[in-house]
């Protein structure tokens, strides 16, 4: 018998144990974890309302500042916000 056929037979014999199965309730556990990560409807509304109020208040507070100061504030805050968002997404994907 050819070596490859012998190895084929040997592997079938060595790996003949019962293949494992997923435990019952796997789907339910996944859905529970996914639901826990999702914001509720009221949570989403709260965050959207906060964002709108924060934008309005910031614009009102900065109304008398020179343009250079506004640009400097945006240059500092936008990358920080984008970085924080990217980091939060990475954490969400890693857990």
């Amino acid at each position, binding site marked *: *018998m050819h*070596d*490859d056929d*012998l*190895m*084929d*037979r*040997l*592997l*079938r*014999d*060595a*790996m*003949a*144990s*019962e*293949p*494992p199965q*997923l*435990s019952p309730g*796997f*789907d339910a*556990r*996944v*859905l529970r*974890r*996914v*639901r826990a*990560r*999702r914001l509720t409807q009221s949570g989403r509304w709260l965050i959207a309302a906060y964002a709108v109020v924060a934008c309005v208040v910031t614009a009102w507070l900065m109304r008398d500042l020179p343009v250079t100061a506004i640009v400097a504030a945006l240059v500092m805050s936008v990358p920080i916000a984008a970085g924080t968002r990217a980091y939060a*997404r990475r954490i*969400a*994907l890693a*857990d």
Partner: protein
Amino acid sequence: MGAEQASYAAQADEWLVERCLAAVDEAAFAELVRRYRSLVFRLAVSILGQEFVPEAEDVAQDVMVRMHGALASFRGEAKFGSWIYRIAFNHALNVKARVRYRAPHVSDDLLATRASADRGPEEQLQHDRRTRAVHDCIAELPEVYQSALRLHYWLGTSVSDIAAMLDAPENTVKSYLHRARQLLHAMLAQRGFDAR
């Protein structure tokens, strides 16, 4: 199976992804989980090995949760299956690097399941030693060979399914299996075992 579930079962993966994203449709996500859970679990267990089945289940669960979080980044350039298998493969490799030095859950029990009444004690001992040597040698092969071998010989996965899971053409998978058998033959001979 409910009417809604039955209608989802007939839909393409891409349609289900769109439903998940546009309508936050839990039934569509549940259908994706139902469709891929076993294959993702098989892929994970083929990478982690027979001693780490509970870890493989954790990997499958993590992959499903990650899939949910990353659906928006699925652009449809590759097949949905290839995308999720890639996530599973990478995550299983990371977990393997962490659990490698932990004591396995099963070792002798695994061998004991193969005990045969037809063999005498001496022959059984020889058989168990050779089986253990085979498993040890498999663990020393490149990851992709290990995975292909376990999927094919242990989990009974077809070559076409292995090709989809490893994102490789079927002929490449066949050559993985052939090359893995050659390497194993040489490794076993080095350890003083004959394939006969």
